[in-house]
């Protein structure tokens, strides 16, 4: 199944949460592939299912209430969803690692930075504590923390937000993973620090030939960093494209609306373009195309109201799920 340089391939993934208030179909029929050494961005607004997709790859969906109801996730020749717990533990944090959004809450406050980094190293590699500790210092040096010798024995509260995110990254790369999942890695940080962290990820990607799954809501970051992009809306992928095509010629009305509504530094007008309406709640998704109530094209279209468009390839490398997209075929 591992063809033409794809390192991770998600096929028809569906995840549901069975709650007291009903079934929330958080992810529906999502498919994409991440190329070796490239950055794949998954963009979307809160509640669209992007983090649930990431957690599914790590097999970290809390069950119950969540359950992966369908799909395959190929990492090399193996389908991660069929692995037993023990074999999954051998991959999680080792071959596929994750950086979380909140550097303030993702680190354990009662252990030193070093203790937390060597935990992963000792779990996956046969190394003595001294060796692992030396590795931890080396990792901190690589993520640009000054005086790593000294900082390694400090506690998380002694560090700033940017430093803690560097520690999180050091932890994630300590076993040299081939895929790094970064879930909103800079959302909690200031803009100047955000730029530093993104540069660091670039640099590490180049050194290790690592693939990055970048999960974000910030189209600016996508434009700067991603090779390929999938836009997610209300549990489904709306569009997949390489970054340049997506920004030059967005095909889905949601992508178009998002790009137009961003306040930009070179914007001179009086009013911003808006996408009307609200992000739908996963327990009460609209029928048909989930974007139709907010869509300038499909809000009055019978077909959009009743039939959900699937993701189709409309030209080489461009997939979109919209009845109105050129070449989609109604």
């Amino acid at each position: 199944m591992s063809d033409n340089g794809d390192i991770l391939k998600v096929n028809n993934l569906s995840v549901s949460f069975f709650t007291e208030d009903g079934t929330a179909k958080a992810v529906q029929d999502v498919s994409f592939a991440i190329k070796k050494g490239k950055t794949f961005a998954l963009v979307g607004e809160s509640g669209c299912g992007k983090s649930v997709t990431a957690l599914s790859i790590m097999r970290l969906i809390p069950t119950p209430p969540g359950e992966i109801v369908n799909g395959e996730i190929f990492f090399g020749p193996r389908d991660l969803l069929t692995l037993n717990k023990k074999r999954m533990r051998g991959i999680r944090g080792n071959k596929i690692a994750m950086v979380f959004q909140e550097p303030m809450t993702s680190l354990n406050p009662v252990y030193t930075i070093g203790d937390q980094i060597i935990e992963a190293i000792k779990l996956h590699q046969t190394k003595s504590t001294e060796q692992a500790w030396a590795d931890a210092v080396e990792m901190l040096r690589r993520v640009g923390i000054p005086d790593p010798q000294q900082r390694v024995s400090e506690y998380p509260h002694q560090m700033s937000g940017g430093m803690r995110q560097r520690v999180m990254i050091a932890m994630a790369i300590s076993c040299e993973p081939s895929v790094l999942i970064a879930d909103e890695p800079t959302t909690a940080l200031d803009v100047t620090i955000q730029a530093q962290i993104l540069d660091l990820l670039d640099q590490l990607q180049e050194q290790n030939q690592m693939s990055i799954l970048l999960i974000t809501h910030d189209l600016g970051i996508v434009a700067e960093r991603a090779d390929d992009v999938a836009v997610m809306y209300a549990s489904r992928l709306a569009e997949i494209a390489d970054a340049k095509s997506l920004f030059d010629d967005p095909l889905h009305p949601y992508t178009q609306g998002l790009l137009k509504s961003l306040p930009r530094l070179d914007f001179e007008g009086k009013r911003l373009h808006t996408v009307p309406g609200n992000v739908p709640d996963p327990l009460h998704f609209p029928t048909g195309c989930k974007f139709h109530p907010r869509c300038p094209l499909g809000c009055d279209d019978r077909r959009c109201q009743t039939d959900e468009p699937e993701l189709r390839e409309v030209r080489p490398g461009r997939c979109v799920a919209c009845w109105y997209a050129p070449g989609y075929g109604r």
Partner: protein
Amino acid sequence: MPNTNGKLLRVDGLKTYFSIKRGLLQRTIGHIKAVDGISFDIAPGQTLGLVGESGCGKTTAARTILRLIPATAGEAIFDGTDILQADKQKLKQIRRNVSLIFQDPYSSLNPRMTVGNIVGEALKVHKGITGAELVNKVKMLLEKVGLSAQHINRYPHEFSGGQRQRIGVARALALEPKLVICDEPVSALDVSIQSQILNLLKDLQDEFGLTYLFIAHDLAVVKFFCDTIAVMYMGKIVEKASAKQIYQKPLHPYTKALMAAIPKVDPAQRGVRKAFGGEVPSLLNPPTGCPFNPRCSLAESQCLKNIPELTESSEGHFVACYKAHKKEE
């Protein structure tokens, strides 16, 4: 109207210090200078943007102006009265005219109150409006901010983030204030919702002639929204000018760095952005001289010793940097 040069709000030399207490006797061993002598003014109907990274003192400044935090020094003249010296009665009067929109629409609405009570509370307290009149007034406000009058008996959890922020806006407008302080009103919202709220605030400004003090960290949002911009760094204003001036010709190296750090929404411009090093120093242990010197590539000996004053560089364009002025000459 007894006004100061036609300005609605004039803040002069405002300082907010928090004392650091240590030891058994809780002796004060130093101060955190969260806001350290800032001055600005806003004309009626205008918007001033206060910009900076987290911890720079922008929110503390706003709260001090509202007297939610006691000021250490300085004055804040609103409509002819110094808010910081006003007695209880005067203060109540002022607070009727100054309202606040908060950042987080999830924690700033009481989950046990209906929308009607949230929006109507100030009307009851300040104006004594009750009964059917109150209900009508609240319904009108809800429709003004793009919600439906039927929402009046619902609770906050029944609304999405953007709708909650609209409730917050309705609450802020209930007393027909002159000045609205918006503390990062869109930074907790989704991208497609941000532009809705920004447009709403603009429309309301046009309709009611509102004056805004707009606090934000996102320069692109601020550029769209503000007439004048003040950039804060470690409790001080380092640059202040009209939005146009600042974006066309930023003078302070920090402003330049902030602007350069914004990702461009255009893959063709990839790699143009330059990251700049260092972090905001701790306020517990500030650097001597210019607070920006540890991160500044232009810093020279006088920057390490003296703190530059905010001075006018060209008409209406103020900057606190020795090097920025030199270049001008």
